[in-house]
């Protein structure tokens, strides 16, 4: 087991690195300088709240949004415009439209995913919820409204299924992606319900299912049976998407609408099941995944108790095991879909948080791993921001 990094001597400066860690029991911020050697912890924020996502607005470098609820109170969104020194609750959190008389309406159980809008649309944010809903804010997260017809569209509602069809803690809408070239070009994914694309700013969406496997015995042409776990767009090639799915790892090169199962090149004993998907900030051929045990009853642990990141440098033609510094055996944690990310430094820093509350990083693109923190609650999401003024 690697020793923990010194957490007492983080430096100030423009090269600062800020980790935003969302957990089942609150949120923590970890600050470092450009060396990424020393980390200063700040928190907890919202102790006892379930924080599914904590995201910094890259357009202003100041605004943080936190998707929060407790085990007993309704969901909300908190926002800070001073990097977490103070928080204000959203005036109107994501909520479905009231149901017409005589019909049973849905209610948001929790906001699961937050995506800042296009660089040319300051103040715009998107949120994905459980059960599946798509919401938008135009005022920096203060007020939210249902976005696009999908929340109440009968066809989409059928594809979304019910709570019974969803993941153990509720079916989710996630992986909301805004094309950096075109604010009207959007993607989102639903577990379950498949990946969907809009070219008209969300007025209409089309399913993007070609080439994706589904569980044996189900109809692959029906979005109901698709379970994308995480979808990412390559910053340097927005025509390329990667997807970690319930049934494998995929790559899609537009304008094609057929995904290629690049996970078939993974070692058979590890498989290509997992949740997170991380893309390199400058190399569209480089991505990382964190495989988990998806056999038999789906233990959702590291395969054989031996956690490892796998990375590819050739778009998924081949994969390398990256486990130096990680526990060699008897480590039964895994990494959730929002809990792994990459910074934009050179070499790229990789970060992940575990279901057992450990925070790990690699400063050399996965070759060597070091533990930043242990004993946190179950980690739901890890995001990173670089060069945030006043962050450290």
């Amino acid at each position: 087991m690697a020793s923990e990094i010194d957490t007492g001597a983080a430096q100030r400066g423009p090269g600062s690195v800020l980790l935003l860690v969302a957990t089942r029991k609150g949120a923590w911020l970890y600050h470092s300088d450009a060396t990424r050697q020393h980390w200063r912890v700040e928190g907890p924020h919202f102790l006892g709240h379930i924080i599914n996502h904590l995201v910094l607005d890259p357009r202003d470098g100041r605004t943080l949004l936190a998707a929060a609820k407790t085990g007993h109170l309704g969901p909300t969104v908190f926002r800070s415009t001073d990097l977490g020194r103070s928080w204000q609750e959203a005036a109107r959190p994501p909520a479905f439209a009231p149901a017409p008389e005589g019909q049973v309406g849905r209610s948001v159980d929790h906001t699961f995913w937050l995506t800042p809008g296009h660089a040319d649309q300051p103040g715009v944010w998107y949120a994905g919820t459980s059960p599946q809903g798509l919401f938008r804010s135009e005022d920096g997260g203060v007020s939210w409204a249902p976005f696009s017809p999908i929340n109440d569209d009968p066809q989409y509602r059928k594809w979304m299924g019910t709570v019974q069809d969803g993941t153990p803690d509720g079916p989710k809408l996630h992986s909301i992606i805004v094309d950096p070239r075109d604010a009207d070009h959007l993607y989102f994914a639903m577990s379950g319900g498949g990946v969907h694309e809009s070219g008209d700013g969300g007025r209409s969406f089309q399913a993007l299912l070609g080439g994706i496997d589904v569980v044996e015995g189900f109809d692959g042409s029906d979005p109901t049976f698709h379970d994308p776990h995480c979808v990412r767009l390559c910053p340097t090639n927005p025509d390329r998407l990667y997807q970690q799915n319930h049934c494998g790892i995929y790559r899609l090169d537009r304008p094609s609408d057929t995904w290629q199962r690049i996970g078939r090149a993974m070692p058979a004993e590890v498989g290509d099941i997992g949740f997170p998907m991380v893309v390199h900030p400058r190399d569209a051929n480089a991505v990382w995944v964190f495989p988990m045990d998806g056999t038999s009853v789906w233990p959702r642990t590291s395969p054989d108790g031996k956690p490892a990141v796998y990375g590819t440098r050739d778009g998924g033609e081949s994969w390398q095991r990256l486990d130096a510094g990680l526990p060699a055996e008897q480590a039964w944690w895994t990494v959730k879909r929002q809990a792994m990310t990459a910074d934009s430094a050179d070499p790229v820093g990789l970060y992940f948080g575990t279901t057992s509350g450990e925070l790990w990083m690699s400063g050399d693109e996965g070759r060597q791993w070091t533990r930043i923190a242990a004993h946190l609650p179950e980690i739901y999401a890890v995001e990173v921001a670089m060069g945030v003024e006043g962050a450290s």
Partner: protein
Amino acid sequence: MKVLIPSALRSYTEQAYAEAGGDTLAAVLAELDRSYPGIRFRMIDEQNRIRPHIRFFVDGEQVFDLARRLDGVQELVIVQALSGG
């Protein structure tokens, strides 16, 4: 009337008791929300359903109907039942 606020919601009121009036439970909760914005949505969902684990007692009687009239009621107690881990 006096409204006893459960500990999980005192981040809104910063005190155990609040004052709110209204003819019905819904009206009292609406006034409470005007005084403490956001507090109602933590208890009542967007379909006007009382959230799980939230209970309302008026002068000692549990009430499940937001339209329930509160004529002459002295105290509303909001209970947030704790369970789970």
